[in-house]
């Protein structure tokens, strides 16, 4: 048996979608978004290369053995590590051209006071000011010195490398072991035994942040494009009195849901096309440029670790759920408005709620506490920005993710109920904006008698 409440849904959906694409503003937004997304890899490559080139030409002077300004290099080792002239590389391209002198720690102050404009002092000391003690290699010149910072950096790094060799070389370790010791120890993301065996060793916090922000931005784009349209569309039908004609042949629920689904089709097709364009363009640019630099620039699109069926399904379901939650909220806000002026403040309110979720989503991935991840994944509206990325990154379990879907699904049902009841009652309202508490009273009459349309 055909559901009478949905009679007209298909027609409203098709009409709204068709007219949205016919509308110059929405057509322009759609095309602009897709083009911008597609061109983004090109823009990033150009701006990335341009940035590197600009930095090189502006700040980095080319340092060659022939144009060195340094004539005297003093190395003052304040550490317990034994480091002397024998530790300096004999085949270095710079050091053999400079007079090099090792000095004791006791001479430090005298050296500092006596530096001339052609002198460079390299001071090596153990610093304990940070979280962990580290060896600092500091290059110092006289105030009037013309030795460039590039030259200081070049010579300092060579002394630094020689010092590292000296402190670790005596341990009879392989080159890779020495490299590992130099880089220190990092803590890997926690994973289950099953995922560890499968070679899936988790996602770093940095990757997590990237994906989370990307997902939150996509959700924010969807919400910001659609909320305004839905509210404006509902209010326009009220303010033009078209709603009278519409409700004589279509159920209010079908009218609202038809618009919501049409906008979902519009915005999802926009993101799908834009995303596909960006991926295609990024892979083309990688092949065309082929350089390490461009690979690094495009690393933001390197989402291969999330490109599995489980993550894609989770993200798709979540995007649809998130869209529906905010779209139905927009439906409720639109029901409460009587004029175009009202719709502006209502759009602002829904956008504020959406922005709050977005801002929280910016911070949650940086928290390493698992309990915090689980709690944030279960709070309606906020979780829609966070949980899908956390799940895709393996930070929350399938059960928590299913709970997230269930809680937000229930929240959506509650919103749809409120929307259906309020739109039906307030469709004829032209007596000003209805406050939120009145909306609740209309949706749940047991809370008290609701205000209704005053138009007679």
């Amino acid at each position, binding site marked *: 048996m055909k559901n009478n409440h949905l009679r007209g849904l298909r027609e409203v959906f098709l009409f709204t979608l068709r007219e949205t694409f016919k509308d110059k503003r929405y057509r322009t937004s759609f095309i602009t978004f897709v083009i911008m997304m597609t061109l983004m890899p090109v823009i990033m490559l150009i701006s990335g290369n341009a940035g590197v080139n600009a930095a090189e030409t502006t700040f980095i002077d080319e340092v060659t053995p022939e144009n060195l300004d340094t004539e005297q290099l003093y190395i003052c080792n304040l550490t317990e590590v034994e480091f002397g002239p024998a530790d300096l590389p004999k085949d270095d391209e710079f050091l053999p051209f400079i007079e090099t002198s090792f000095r004791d720690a006791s001479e430090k102050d005298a050296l500092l006071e006596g530096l001339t404009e052609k002198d460079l002092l390299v001071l090596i000391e153990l610093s304990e000011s940070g979280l962990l003690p580290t060896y600092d290699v500091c290059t110092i010149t006289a105030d009037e010195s013309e030795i460039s910072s590039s030259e200081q950096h070049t010579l300092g790094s060579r002394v630094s490398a020689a010092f590292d060799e000296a402190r670790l070389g005596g341990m009879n370790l392989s080159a890779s072991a020495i490299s590992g010791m130099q880089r220190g120890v990092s803590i890997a993301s926690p994973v289950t035994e099953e995922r560890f065996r499968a070679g899936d060793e988790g996602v770093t916090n940095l990757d997590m942040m990237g994906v989370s922000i990307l997902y939150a931005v996509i959700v924010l784009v969807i919400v910001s494009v659609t909320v305004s349209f839905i509210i404006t569309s509902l209010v326009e039908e009220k303010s033009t009195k078209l*709603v*009278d*004609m519409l409700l*004589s042949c279509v159920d209010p629920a079908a009218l609202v849901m038809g618009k919501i689904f049409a906008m979902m089709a519009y915005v999802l097709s926009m993101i799908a096309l834009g995303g596909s364009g960006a991926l295609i363009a990024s892979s083309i640019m990688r092949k065309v440029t082929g350089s390490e630099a461009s690979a690094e620039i495009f690393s933001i699109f390197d989402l291969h670790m999330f490109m599995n069926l489980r993550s894609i399904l989770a993200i798709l379901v979540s995007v649809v759920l998130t869209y529906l939650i905010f779209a139905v909220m927009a439906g409720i806000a639109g029901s409460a408005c009587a004029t175009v002026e009202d719709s502006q403040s209502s759009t602002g309110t829904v956008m504020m709620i959406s922005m709050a979720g977005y801002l929280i989503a910016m911070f949650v991935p940086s928290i390493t506490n698992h309990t915090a991840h689980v709690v944030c994944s279960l709070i309606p509206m906020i979780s829609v920005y966070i949980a899908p990325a956390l799940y895709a990154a393996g930070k929350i379990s399938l059960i928590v993710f299913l709970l997230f879907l269930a809680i937000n699904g229930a929240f959506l049902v509650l919103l749809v109920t409120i929307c259906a009841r309020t739109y039906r009652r307030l469709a004829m309202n032209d007596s000003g904006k209805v406050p939120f508490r009145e909306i609740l009273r209309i949706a749940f009459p047991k809370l008290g008698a609701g205000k209704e349309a005053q138009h007679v």
Partner: protein
Amino acid sequence: MSLLVHDLSKKYGEKTVVDHISFEMPGPGVYALLGTNGAGKTTTIRMMLDMLEKDSGEVLWQDKPLSFTTCNIGYLAEERGLYPKYPIIDQLRYFAQLRGVPAGEIDSRIKMWAEKLQVEEYLYPEKAAALEAEAKAAERAARGQQMPEAPAGKAAAGRAAFGGARKKEKPRTPDTLSKGNQQKIQFMIAMISDPDLLILDEPFSGLDPVNSDILKKVVREQIDAGKYIIMSSHQMQAVEEFCTDITILHRSKAVVSGNLNDIKKSFGRVNLSLKVEQDITSYVEAIGAQILREKEFEYDIRVTGDDQANALLKALISAGVQIVRFDLRELSLHEIFVKEVGADNEE
């Protein structure tokens, strides 16, 4: 088939806007809902169409609750509205689909109604262009000018072959139409599904006499086709022309309800229009009647009924007064309306 409206009531807070309204249409015809502004006509209609929740009462069509799923309803709302920026033709197709018109019939029905309501030029841009060209040609002919020579070249010849159209005309949107034409488009929307029940809320307001006549003609056709029509209007003359039954609402209550002829009879024949060739004031005063208007021996007199009118006629004949016209009439709908609600109409 029948339409039954039983005990409809609606309150907003403490204010009663419709107070236990009931009426019935046992067969096809026109039922008029009359009343002053704010009397509750539109609210009654909205409750009938299930757009507003009823506090009490029911509306039955063939013994089933009336809704767009149980009855093919055409509705012209009091407050006109169309999407201002969407093409008119798209909106007509949209409403035809919503009203369940078979896809294959939509365009032919739109064309038929566009012809009938004389709005083709707003729906079909090429028609508008052709009309414009015709008008220009007629204007030139009237001024005795020759037609300009056809432009040279293949492209120009091609354009000429297609009626001289240089580019595709953009479809018209409602914001480019006059209020009256927008109203005719909305009337088309109401009629597009060939409804069994037609509800027209103030159908003639804002229309010029020509367009008003076009709509009246359509209403007459619908009456002849055996449709149920509910009409709400302030224009008593227009309503009186069509309706068989009425309900007059005043301050949310039905103050008069029933068959129009019966209602008129209940008020009696009290309007006497008399044309004579001398002053008859003394005769009128002698029988206790009231002269409402007098101009050059033409009198509008309010009598108490047939007996008083006959008494006056006898007196005039006995006195040898030359009577040119003697017309004893019932109250008009307008007079009944004013009599019932006019005295304390402050809304």
